Protein backbone atom coordinates (compact mmCIF):
# COMPACT_ATOMS: atom_id res chain seq x y z
CA UNK A 1 0.00 0.00 0.00
CA UNK A 2 1.40 3.47 -0.89
CA UNK A 3 2.73 5.47 2.07
CA UNK A 4 0.42 8.48 1.64
CA UNK A 5 -2.61 6.23 1.28
CA UNK A 6 -1.60 4.22 4.35
CA UNK A 7 -1.32 7.40 6.44
CA UNK A 8 -4.71 8.60 5.24
CA UNK A 9 -6.27 5.22 5.98
CA UNK A 10 -4.72 4.86 9.43
CA UNK A 11 -5.86 8.38 10.35
CA UNK A 12 -9.44 7.26 9.75
CA UNK A 13 -9.03 3.90 11.48
CA UNK A 14 -7.45 5.51 14.54
CA UNK A 15 -10.16 8.19 14.54
CA UNK A 16 -12.87 5.51 14.72
CA UNK A 17 -10.88 3.56 17.34
CA UNK A 18 -10.43 6.73 19.42
CA UNK A 19 -14.17 7.29 19.48
CA UNK A 20 -14.76 3.83 20.95
CA UNK A 21 -11.77 3.95 23.33
CA UNK A 22 -12.57 7.45 24.59
CA UNK A 23 -16.18 6.58 25.39
CA UNK A 24 -15.05 3.35 27.09
CA UNK A 25 -12.40 5.29 29.02
CA UNK A 26 -14.82 7.90 30.31
CA UNK A 27 -17.41 5.26 31.15
CA UNK A 28 -15.01 3.06 33.11
CA UNK A 29 -13.18 5.91 34.83
CA UNK A 30 -16.13 8.07 35.81
CA UNK A 31 -19.31 6.00 35.82
CA UNK A 32 -18.76 2.25 35.96
CA UNK A 33 -15.80 1.86 38.31
CA UNK A 34 -16.88 -0.40 41.21
CA UNK A 35 -14.74 1.33 43.90
CA UNK A 36 -15.97 4.73 42.70
CA UNK A 37 -19.62 3.64 42.92
CA UNK A 38 -19.10 2.41 46.48
CA UNK A 39 -17.08 5.41 47.59
CA UNK A 40 -13.88 3.37 47.92
CA UNK A 41 -11.75 4.86 45.21
CA UNK A 42 -8.13 4.37 46.26
CA UNK A 43 -4.76 4.07 44.58
CA UNK A 44 -4.80 0.35 45.37
CA UNK A 45 -8.16 -0.11 43.72
CA UNK A 46 -7.01 1.59 40.51
CA UNK A 47 -3.71 -0.29 40.54
CA UNK A 48 -5.55 -3.59 40.87
CA UNK A 49 -7.33 -2.86 37.61
CA UNK A 50 -4.48 -1.47 35.53
CA UNK A 51 -2.03 -4.21 36.45
CA UNK A 52 -4.20 -6.78 34.65
CA UNK A 53 -2.89 -7.63 31.13
CA UNK A 54 -6.28 -6.86 29.55
CA UNK A 55 -6.45 -3.31 30.90
CA UNK A 56 -2.79 -2.70 30.20
CA UNK A 57 -3.38 -3.80 26.61
CA UNK A 58 -6.39 -1.50 26.28
CA UNK A 59 -4.56 1.45 27.83
CA UNK A 60 -1.43 0.98 25.72
CA UNK A 61 -3.58 0.67 22.59
CA UNK A 62 -5.39 3.86 23.61
CA UNK A 63 -2.07 5.64 24.07
CA UNK A 64 -0.66 4.51 20.71
CA UNK A 65 -3.86 5.25 18.81
CA UNK A 66 -4.16 8.72 20.36
CA UNK A 67 -0.50 9.51 19.70
CA UNK A 68 -0.68 8.45 16.05
CA UNK A 69 -3.94 10.29 15.41
CA UNK A 70 -2.88 13.47 17.18
CA UNK A 71 0.64 13.73 15.82
CA UNK A 72 -0.32 12.73 12.28
CA UNK A 73 -3.12 15.30 12.45
CA UNK A 74 -0.56 17.92 13.45
CA UNK A 75 1.63 16.87 10.52
CA UNK A 76 -1.33 17.16 8.16
CA UNK A 77 -1.89 20.74 9.30
CA UNK A 78 1.75 21.54 8.51
CA UNK A 79 1.43 19.92 5.06
CA UNK A 80 -1.70 21.97 4.35
CA UNK A 81 0.27 25.22 4.38
CA UNK A 82 2.33 25.43 1.20
CA UNK A 83 4.29 28.43 2.48
CA UNK A 84 6.07 26.08 4.88
CA UNK A 85 9.18 24.89 3.00
CA UNK A 86 9.54 21.17 2.27
CA UNK A 87 12.71 20.93 4.37
CA UNK A 88 10.89 22.41 7.35
CA UNK A 89 7.93 20.06 6.84
CA UNK A 90 10.35 17.12 6.79
CA UNK A 91 12.02 18.39 9.98
CA UNK A 92 8.60 18.72 11.65
CA UNK A 93 7.73 15.16 10.58
CA UNK A 94 10.98 13.86 12.06
CA UNK A 95 10.39 15.81 15.27
CA UNK A 96 6.82 14.48 15.57
CA UNK A 97 8.01 10.89 15.05
CA UNK A 98 10.61 11.47 17.78
CA UNK A 99 8.01 12.97 20.14
CA UNK A 100 5.67 10.07 19.43
CA UNK A 101 8.32 7.42 20.13
CA UNK A 102 9.46 9.07 23.37
CA UNK A 103 5.87 9.56 24.56
CA UNK A 104 4.93 5.98 23.67
CA UNK A 105 7.95 4.61 25.51
CA UNK A 106 7.23 6.88 28.51
CA UNK A 107 3.62 5.72 28.70
CA UNK A 108 4.37 2.01 28.27
CA UNK A 109 7.26 2.22 30.73
CA UNK A 110 4.89 3.63 33.38
CA UNK A 111 3.07 0.29 33.52
CA UNK A 112 6.24 -1.58 34.43
CA UNK A 113 6.50 0.38 37.70
CA UNK A 114 3.06 -0.67 38.90
CA UNK A 115 3.67 -4.19 40.18
Amino acid sequence: MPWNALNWYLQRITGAALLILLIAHFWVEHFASEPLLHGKLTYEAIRARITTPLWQGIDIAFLLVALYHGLNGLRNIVLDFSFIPREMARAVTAALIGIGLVWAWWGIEAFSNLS
Partner: protein
Amino acid sequence: MIRYQVRVARGEQGISRGHQTFEVELEDRMTVLDALFRIQREHDPEFTFRCACRVGMCGTCAASINGIPRLACRTRASVLGGKRITVDPLPNLPVIRDIAVSMQPFFDQWKRVTPGFRPRAPESTELATIPEGSRYMRLSKGKRDCITCGACFGACGVKAASAEYLGPAAINRAMLRLIDPRDGAVEERVSVLDQERAGVWRCHTQFNCTEVCPKGITLTESITWLQRSLLRKSSLRNKA
Protein backbone atom coordinates in the same frame (compact mmCIF):
# COMPACT_ATOMS: atom_id res chain seq x y z
CA MET B 1 -38.23 47.83 -10.51
CA ILE B 2 -36.41 47.17 -7.26
CA ARG B 3 -33.60 49.39 -6.05
CA TYR B 4 -30.48 47.58 -4.82
CA GLN B 5 -27.30 48.78 -3.20
CA VAL B 6 -24.54 46.90 -4.98
CA ARG B 7 -21.22 46.96 -3.16
CA VAL B 8 -18.38 45.94 -5.45
CA ALA B 9 -14.68 45.39 -4.81
CA ARG B 10 -12.31 47.82 -6.50
CA GLY B 11 -8.61 47.46 -7.07
CA GLU B 12 -6.06 46.18 -9.52
CA GLN B 13 -3.02 43.89 -9.73
CA GLY B 14 -3.59 42.60 -6.22
CA ILE B 15 -3.83 46.09 -4.67
CA SER B 16 -7.25 46.53 -3.09
CA ARG B 17 -8.94 49.93 -3.09
CA GLY B 18 -11.74 48.68 -0.86
CA HIS B 19 -15.39 48.59 -1.93
CA GLN B 20 -17.60 51.06 -3.74
CA THR B 21 -21.38 51.06 -3.44
CA PHE B 22 -23.71 51.86 -6.35
CA GLU B 23 -27.48 52.28 -6.44
CA VAL B 24 -28.89 50.04 -9.17
CA GLU B 25 -32.48 49.43 -10.26
CA LEU B 26 -33.30 45.90 -11.39
CA GLU B 27 -36.41 44.09 -12.51
CA ASP B 28 -37.58 41.02 -10.66
CA ARG B 29 -35.91 38.41 -12.88
CA MET B 30 -32.64 40.29 -13.42
CA THR B 31 -29.34 38.83 -12.29
CA VAL B 32 -26.24 40.04 -10.49
CA LEU B 33 -24.53 40.16 -13.89
CA ASP B 34 -27.20 42.62 -15.03
CA ALA B 35 -26.39 44.71 -11.97
CA LEU B 36 -22.70 44.71 -12.88
CA PHE B 37 -23.56 45.86 -16.42
CA ARG B 38 -25.76 48.64 -15.00
CA ILE B 39 -22.85 49.84 -12.86
CA GLN B 40 -20.53 49.85 -15.88
CA ARG B 41 -22.99 51.57 -18.21
CA GLU B 42 -24.65 54.04 -15.87
CA HIS B 43 -22.03 54.81 -13.20
CA ASP B 44 -18.44 53.89 -13.99
CA PRO B 45 -17.30 52.69 -17.45
CA GLU B 46 -13.96 51.65 -15.95
CA PHE B 47 -15.56 49.12 -13.64
CA THR B 48 -14.12 45.74 -14.70
CA PHE B 49 -15.59 42.24 -14.66
CA ARG B 50 -15.61 39.28 -17.02
CA CYS B 51 -18.46 37.49 -18.76
CA ALA B 52 -19.13 35.77 -22.05
CA CYS B 53 -22.17 33.55 -22.60
CA ARG B 54 -24.57 35.03 -20.00
CA VAL B 55 -26.43 31.72 -19.76
CA GLY B 56 -24.33 29.68 -17.32
CA MET B 57 -22.41 27.74 -19.96
CA CYS B 58 -18.96 29.33 -20.01
CA GLY B 59 -18.22 29.93 -16.32
CA THR B 60 -16.50 33.24 -17.03
CA CYS B 61 -18.59 35.42 -14.71
CA ALA B 62 -17.93 33.46 -11.50
CA ALA B 63 -17.49 35.82 -8.56
CA SER B 64 -17.96 35.87 -4.83
CA ILE B 65 -21.53 37.10 -4.36
CA ASN B 66 -22.50 37.84 -0.76
CA GLY B 67 -19.49 35.76 0.26
CA ILE B 68 -20.31 32.67 -1.80
CA PRO B 69 -18.70 31.84 -5.17
CA ARG B 70 -21.45 31.74 -7.81
CA LEU B 71 -22.06 32.54 -11.46
CA ALA B 72 -23.24 36.15 -11.67
CA CYS B 73 -25.36 35.33 -14.72
CA ARG B 74 -27.23 32.54 -12.89
CA THR B 75 -27.82 34.43 -9.64
CA ARG B 76 -31.01 36.45 -9.55
CA ALA B 77 -30.73 39.50 -7.34
CA SER B 78 -34.17 38.80 -5.84
CA VAL B 79 -33.16 35.40 -4.41
CA LEU B 80 -30.26 36.81 -2.40
CA GLY B 81 -32.60 38.02 0.31
CA GLY B 82 -32.06 41.72 0.83
CA LYS B 83 -31.48 44.92 -1.04
CA ARG B 84 -27.75 44.93 -0.47
CA ILE B 85 -25.49 42.80 -2.68
CA THR B 86 -21.74 42.47 -2.22
CA VAL B 87 -19.66 41.29 -5.17
CA ASP B 88 -16.00 40.37 -4.71
CA PRO B 89 -13.52 38.64 -7.00
CA LEU B 90 -13.22 34.86 -6.65
CA PRO B 91 -10.98 34.01 -3.68
CA ASN B 92 -7.68 32.14 -4.15
CA LEU B 93 -7.02 33.76 -7.54
CA PRO B 94 -4.99 36.91 -8.31
CA VAL B 95 -7.06 40.01 -9.09
CA ILE B 96 -6.43 41.64 -12.45
CA ARG B 97 -8.86 44.47 -11.86
CA ASP B 98 -12.00 44.91 -9.73
CA ILE B 99 -13.96 41.62 -10.12
CA ALA B 100 -11.84 40.17 -12.94
CA VAL B 101 -9.35 37.54 -11.77
CA SER B 102 -6.60 35.65 -13.53
CA MET B 103 -7.48 31.97 -13.98
CA GLN B 104 -3.79 31.12 -14.42
CA PRO B 105 -3.36 29.30 -11.05
CA PHE B 106 -6.53 27.29 -11.73
CA PHE B 107 -5.37 26.14 -15.17
CA ASP B 108 -1.80 25.58 -13.96
CA GLN B 109 -3.20 22.91 -11.62
CA TRP B 110 -5.64 21.70 -14.28
CA LYS B 111 -2.74 21.04 -16.67
CA ARG B 112 -0.82 19.05 -14.06
CA VAL B 113 -3.34 16.18 -14.10
CA THR B 114 -2.99 15.64 -17.88
CA PRO B 115 -6.57 16.74 -18.54
CA GLY B 116 -6.60 15.78 -22.23
CA PHE B 117 -7.54 12.35 -23.51
CA ARG B 118 -4.56 10.02 -24.06
CA PRO B 119 -5.73 6.98 -25.98
CA ARG B 120 -4.78 3.61 -24.53
CA ALA B 121 -4.51 2.14 -28.03
CA PRO B 122 -3.59 5.03 -30.37
CA GLU B 123 -3.06 2.75 -33.35
CA SER B 124 -6.43 1.03 -33.00
CA THR B 125 -8.89 1.46 -35.83
CA GLU B 126 -11.73 -0.15 -33.87
CA LEU B 127 -14.51 2.16 -32.71
CA ALA B 128 -14.22 2.48 -28.92
CA THR B 129 -17.67 2.57 -27.41
CA ILE B 130 -18.86 3.10 -23.84
CA PRO B 131 -22.09 1.20 -23.17
CA GLU B 132 -24.85 2.97 -21.26
CA GLY B 133 -24.69 0.70 -18.21
CA SER B 134 -20.88 0.56 -18.00
CA ARG B 135 -18.76 1.37 -14.94
CA TYR B 136 -17.61 4.63 -16.57
CA MET B 137 -21.17 5.80 -17.17
CA ARG B 138 -22.17 4.87 -13.62
CA LEU B 139 -19.21 6.54 -11.88
CA SER B 140 -19.10 9.63 -14.09
CA LYS B 141 -22.79 10.41 -13.80
CA GLY B 142 -23.23 14.08 -12.88
CA LYS B 143 -19.47 14.70 -12.95
CA ARG B 144 -18.91 15.41 -16.65
CA ASP B 145 -20.36 18.92 -16.84
CA CYS B 146 -17.50 21.04 -15.43
CA ILE B 147 -17.34 24.47 -17.10
CA THR B 148 -14.03 25.42 -15.40
CA CYS B 149 -15.58 28.46 -13.74
CA GLY B 150 -13.28 28.22 -10.71
CA ALA B 151 -16.07 28.50 -8.12
CA CYS B 152 -14.85 25.33 -6.36
CA PHE B 153 -11.28 26.63 -6.46
CA GLY B 154 -12.43 29.85 -4.79
CA ALA B 155 -14.53 28.10 -2.16
CA CYS B 156 -11.95 25.47 -1.17
CA GLY B 157 -10.61 26.02 2.35
CA VAL B 158 -7.47 23.99 1.66
CA LYS B 159 -6.75 25.96 -1.50
CA ALA B 160 -6.78 29.13 0.60
CA ALA B 161 -3.75 27.81 2.52
CA SER B 162 -1.98 25.88 -0.20
CA ALA B 163 -0.85 27.11 -3.60
CA GLU B 164 0.33 23.56 -4.33
CA TYR B 165 -3.02 21.79 -3.90
CA LEU B 166 -4.57 20.71 -7.21
CA GLY B 167 -8.05 21.87 -6.28
CA PRO B 168 -11.39 20.09 -6.75
CA ALA B 169 -11.97 20.69 -10.48
CA ALA B 170 -8.60 19.30 -11.58
CA ILE B 171 -9.03 16.25 -9.35
CA ASN B 172 -12.51 15.61 -10.72
CA ARG B 173 -11.11 15.88 -14.25
CA ALA B 174 -8.36 13.38 -13.40
CA MET B 175 -10.96 11.00 -11.97
CA LEU B 176 -13.01 11.16 -15.18
CA ARG B 177 -9.93 10.32 -17.26
CA LEU B 178 -8.84 7.53 -14.89
CA ILE B 179 -12.18 5.73 -15.07
CA ASP B 180 -12.38 6.09 -18.86
CA PRO B 181 -11.51 2.62 -20.25
CA ARG B 182 -10.24 4.19 -23.50
CA ASP B 183 -7.65 6.36 -21.74
CA GLY B 184 -4.10 5.18 -21.05
CA ALA B 185 -2.32 7.94 -19.08
CA VAL B 186 -2.85 6.29 -15.71
CA GLU B 187 0.64 6.55 -14.21
CA GLU B 188 1.07 10.26 -15.04
CA ARG B 189 -2.18 11.17 -13.31
CA VAL B 190 -1.76 8.84 -10.35
CA SER B 191 1.73 10.22 -9.64
CA VAL B 192 0.29 13.75 -9.38
CA LEU B 193 -2.86 12.77 -7.45
CA ASP B 194 -0.77 10.82 -4.92
CA GLN B 195 1.53 13.75 -4.09
CA GLU B 196 1.63 14.46 -0.38
CA ARG B 197 1.27 18.25 -0.52
CA ALA B 198 -0.62 18.70 -3.79
CA GLY B 199 -2.72 15.59 -4.26
CA VAL B 200 -6.00 14.22 -2.99
CA TRP B 201 -4.66 13.69 0.56
CA ARG B 202 -5.00 17.38 1.34
CA CYS B 203 -8.80 17.37 0.99
CA HIS B 204 -10.55 17.90 4.34
CA THR B 205 -13.97 16.91 2.98
CA GLN B 206 -15.43 20.30 3.84
CA PHE B 207 -17.88 20.00 0.90
CA ASN B 208 -17.47 23.70 0.04
CA CYS B 209 -16.69 22.77 -3.58
CA THR B 210 -19.77 20.58 -3.92
CA GLU B 211 -21.91 23.27 -2.30
CA VAL B 212 -20.92 26.04 -4.73
CA CYS B 213 -20.57 24.10 -8.00
CA PRO B 214 -23.07 25.75 -10.42
CA LYS B 215 -23.37 22.45 -12.30
CA GLY B 216 -24.10 20.41 -9.18
CA ILE B 217 -21.01 18.23 -9.55
CA THR B 218 -20.32 16.20 -6.40
CA LEU B 219 -16.63 17.13 -6.37
CA THR B 220 -15.96 15.93 -2.82
CA GLU B 221 -17.28 12.52 -3.79
CA SER B 222 -14.81 12.40 -6.70
CA ILE B 223 -11.94 13.24 -4.34
CA THR B 224 -12.90 10.66 -1.70
CA TRP B 225 -13.41 8.06 -4.45
CA LEU B 226 -9.83 8.67 -5.58
CA GLN B 227 -8.52 8.54 -2.00
CA ARG B 228 -10.10 5.10 -1.58
CA SER B 229 -8.93 3.97 -5.02
CA LEU B 230 -5.33 5.02 -4.36
CA LEU B 231 -5.26 2.54 -1.46
CA ARG B 232 -5.17 -0.06 -4.24
CA LYS B 233 -3.51 1.55 -7.23
CA SER B 234 -4.01 -1.63 -9.23
CA SER B 235 -7.75 -0.90 -9.24
CA LEU B 236 -7.01 2.27 -11.24
CA ARG B 237 -4.68 0.52 -13.67
CA ASN B 238 -7.15 -2.29 -14.29
CA LYS B 239 -10.14 -0.20 -15.32
CA ALA B 240 -11.62 -2.15 -18.14
